[in-house]
């Protein structure tokens, strides 16, 4: 029931879906309340988010800074475009690694699904090339492909 799906649409979209046991209000809050975001939007084990700016209003800024406490750090910036409380969020974001990644335009929907929520995230990359790059590294078929490839290099 909680399994995540990830598929492509057209030339530039990536669609992610995930079911949650909580109602849309709670899932939406967990995406817009900095105190809640800092508890889960952390990436790999051992990382924390000391800086979490999330101005949940149209034009509001997003800035997340992560650290692993051992000198590793990176950050993300973004801007909110539209918000429909408990239903839908539209924002744009890019990561700095340290060079900025291409802008990712993301529409996130929170639909009631029984007593839970079906969340659908629709990412739009700037062009087919950028998405092709994502697919080429095995995103479409899952990470197995990527791990197999890394093993092949060692």
């Amino acid at each position: 029931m909680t399994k995540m799906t990830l598929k492509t649409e057209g030339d530039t979209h990536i669609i992610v879906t995930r079911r949650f046991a909580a109602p849309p209000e709670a899932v939406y809050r967990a995406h817009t309340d900095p105190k809640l975001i800092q508890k889960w939007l952390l990436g790999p084990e051992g990382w924390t988010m000391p800086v979490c700016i999330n101005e949940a209003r149209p034009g509001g800024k997003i800035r997340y800074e992560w650290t692993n406490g051992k000198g590793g750090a990176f950050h993300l910036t973004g801007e909110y475009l539209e918000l429909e409380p408990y239903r839908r969020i539209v924002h744009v974001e890019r990561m700095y690694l340290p060079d900025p990644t291409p802008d990712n335009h993301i529409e996130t929907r929170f639909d009631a699904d029984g007593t839970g929520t079906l969340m659908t995230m629709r990412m739009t990359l700037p062009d087919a090339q950028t998405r092709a790059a994502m697919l080429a590294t095995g995103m479409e078929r899952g990470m197995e492909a990527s791990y197999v490839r890394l093993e092949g290099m060692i």
Partner: protein
Amino acid sequence: MSSTRLNLDAAFSALADPTRRAILARLAKGETTVLELAKPFDMTQPAISQHLKVLEDAGLIVRRVEGTKRPRRLAKAGIEALDQWLAMLRRTLEKNYDRLDEVLATIDRHKKGETR
């Protein structure tokens, strides 16, 4: 090993071509000569060499000199750097959502606690 410097833009452009993705997939299995790399494709060796140059310039593959041969292999640093942000998405999402499940369960418990 020749030095590799990943150029993200060049790497994305390089990966946008299906032949070059197929070449990378083949190289994932190990070092390969240009002749072997050209085999599965209906292409001349110069055409393959051109694709290899694009991949090399993008920091995704490296060459080695072995007599008259120039076998190619994946540039670990380049591929890893690309993977760092490309793979981050899926891996991070899965991990994050597992954690979010726990956060949501906590909120739910608090709520129930408050109404009692």
